[in-house]
């Protein structure tokens, strides 16, 4: 089995089998990462450009590491966000990519759908590393890998995503991926950060965090951005924390333990408290480790690799 698309632009429309394939492949690559020499020659001679139009630390590092572990040649391109909305930048960049015969484009951009634009204009395989509020498919995949590792299977799992759903590409990729894999997904946050007609995704909306906690096996806590408060979407960080913050106190009231995820970077003391983020039920650092394995799997599969992976 192989992936149907030559790009990974999002998890919407990616099938259960395909996600399963990526996650299985990632598990194999995770074993590679545990070896004394954690490197394979799989993508030797292939060139990857990491095209980051928006600042990113962990996603870019994670992709770079994945590329290096696969022996690909990678080059980095970072552009300031200020020039992003001028249009020419992206089109010219696309033309340059074509001229340089690059095999993979890993792309982060502040505009939703921008990777579609690039994918339509280049021969390279495009991997979306986050496009505006649209999707961040490798984050969705690494979250699912982490959950599958911890909870054995995704089917029937109750995952609640807490925070700014409206502006979150992580939320969208998680929702599309988890729903496809048979998980039950809830979302929770201030109504101003819940997008319109979200029920059509087949998710449950929890206006109150207590109701979400009562339901959830897993919480995926999103970073709350200060600019949303400035944009008038909620009154203050203080009130956000008091209504939606994931605190030890809130969790201690429950008769169960909830697995805690966070895509990072964390605003400690705002959306989540340090003792929760660093606590026993947090898998936040596992997410980071799995991120490299998942990205290796995606690169490998898009390169046309077969899932059988031998030393």
């Amino acid at each position, binding site marked *: 089995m192989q992936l149907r698309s030559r790009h990974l632009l999002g998890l919407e429309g990616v099938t259960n089998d395909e996600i399963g394939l990526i996650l299985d492949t990632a598990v194999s690559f995770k074993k590679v990462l545990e070896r004394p020499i954690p490197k394979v020659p799989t993508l030797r001679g292939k060139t990857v450009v990491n095209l980051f139009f928006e600042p990113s630390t962990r996603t870019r590092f994670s992709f770079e590491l994945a590329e290096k572990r696969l022996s690909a040649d990678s080059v980095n391109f970072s552009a300031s966000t200020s020039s992003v909305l001028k*249009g*020419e930048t992206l089109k010219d960049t696309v033309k340059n990519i074509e001229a340089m015969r690059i095999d993979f484009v890993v792309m982060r951009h502040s505009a939703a*759908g921008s990777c579609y*634009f690039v994918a339509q204009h280049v021969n390279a395989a495009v991997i979306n590393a986050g496009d505006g509020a649209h999707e961040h498919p490798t984050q969705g995949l690494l979250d699912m890998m982490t959950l599958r590792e911890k909870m054995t299977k995704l089917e029937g799992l109750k995952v609640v995503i807490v925070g700014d759903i409206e502006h979150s590409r992580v939320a969208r990729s998680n929702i599309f991926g988890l729903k496809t894999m048979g998980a039950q997904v809830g979302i929770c946050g201030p109504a101003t950060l819940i997008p*319109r007609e979200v029920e*059509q995704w087949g998710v449950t909306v929890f206006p109150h965090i207590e109701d979400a906690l009562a339901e959830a096996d897993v919480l995926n806590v999103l970073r709350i951005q200060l600019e949303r408060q400035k944009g008038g979407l909620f009154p203050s960080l203080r009130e956000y924390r008091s209504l939606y913050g994931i605190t030890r106190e809130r969790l201690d009231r429950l008769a169960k333990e909830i697995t805690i995820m966070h895509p990072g970077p964390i605003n400690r003391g705002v959306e989540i408290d340090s003792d929760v983020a660093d606590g026993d039920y947090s898998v936040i650092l596992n997410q980071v480790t799995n991120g490299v394995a998942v990205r290796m799997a995606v690169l490998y599969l898009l390169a046309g690799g077969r899932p059988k992976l031998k030393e």
Partner: protein
Amino acid sequence: MKDNREIGPIRVERLLLRGGRILDPSSNVDRLSDLLIVDGKIRKIGGEKFTQSDGILLDCKDKIIVPGLIDMHVHLREPGREDEETIASGCRAAMAGGFTAVCCMPNTHPVIDTRGQVEFIKERSEGFLVDVHPIAAVTVGQKGTELTEMGDEVAAGAVGFSDDGYPVQKAAILRRALEYAKTFGYPIIEHCEETSLSENGVMNEGFVSTTLGLRGIPSISEEIHVARDLLIADYTGGPLHIAHVSTKGSVHLIREAKKRGISVTAETCPHYLVLTEEAVREFDTNTKMKPPLRTEEDRKALWVGLKDGTIDVIASDHAPHAIEEKETEYDAAAFGIVGLETALGLMMTYALRKKVLTLPELVKKMAILPRKILNLPENRIQEGSLANLTIVDLNKKWTVDRTQFHSKSRNTPFDGWPLEGASFGVVNNNQLYYKF
């Protein structure tokens, strides 16, 4: 479309349109007949002996001759963005699309907000087959603060006023504009958008924007403005025309207002009638326009409004844009699509073929009512009248090919669409243009 061979525009002194079906709902005419045009006027409707040596004879068998169509909402981009469109190229596009007249919106650079600017448009379009009727700005520079010299603009040929693209945000300004415009009998054409609600939005707000992570423009951004304008129109009695209606709520508001006798008219565009927000899913920037493509429910409501007379007019909102303004990220792309060369084909395919409107109804919405709203002289097909005609071919099967557009711009979401029905030719100002 250039894929057909075309003739014209050519000057004609004597022209016989032979064997066409002549249809003019305002004169209650619908019959098969020859039509003789001499020196720009309809000389005779009826059988005529005519040979090529007497002038030009055009075989109109299986064609329908209707009053010349007018597109009351186009952007010709001149002056300022002649790379996107000029008055001349826009008029060629109009002619090819079956229109004998267009109204050009004033959001050019500089803005059409003085008599001099209106005269510039009139001079640049002099002698064309297509009549260009300028719409002047409501406020100086379309800045929403100071009324333009409407009387002077009307004297130079303006037929309406609009701050299209920059909706009049202050209610007091619109009130004064409607009161003042009433004197001249020309409408204030409103682009309805409460910008505090649409701010930064790029598509309809709803399930599709939610899924794509694109910023939404809620339907209430349009409807609040429509409701406000209707109240002001009611209060002042001023002539209000609502441009490019896109939502079910707006249709409802306008229908109710008309019932109450408020002086309001409305238009919608073919793209709102045949496309929905679903078209945005692949992030094609040619689906980006203001107002945005709405939901299926809205689309259906527009057809109902069109049928029951709530919506008076079909206009294209022809908005040419340079390639680089569209070949970019969805967020960064310009709003608007070209429409002059697809409007008639789309309406014939989706209104006539699907039997939602009859041909007389369509002619009313594309020829008769716009002229009435704009206070232009009636255009009747009768002996003695000026020959201002569109000849349509209901059975013409064709495919939209944007590389063949006469417009300088190519930004259409309809490229490759198979359509049925097209303009065969147009006659106006002693000139003939046709395809064969």
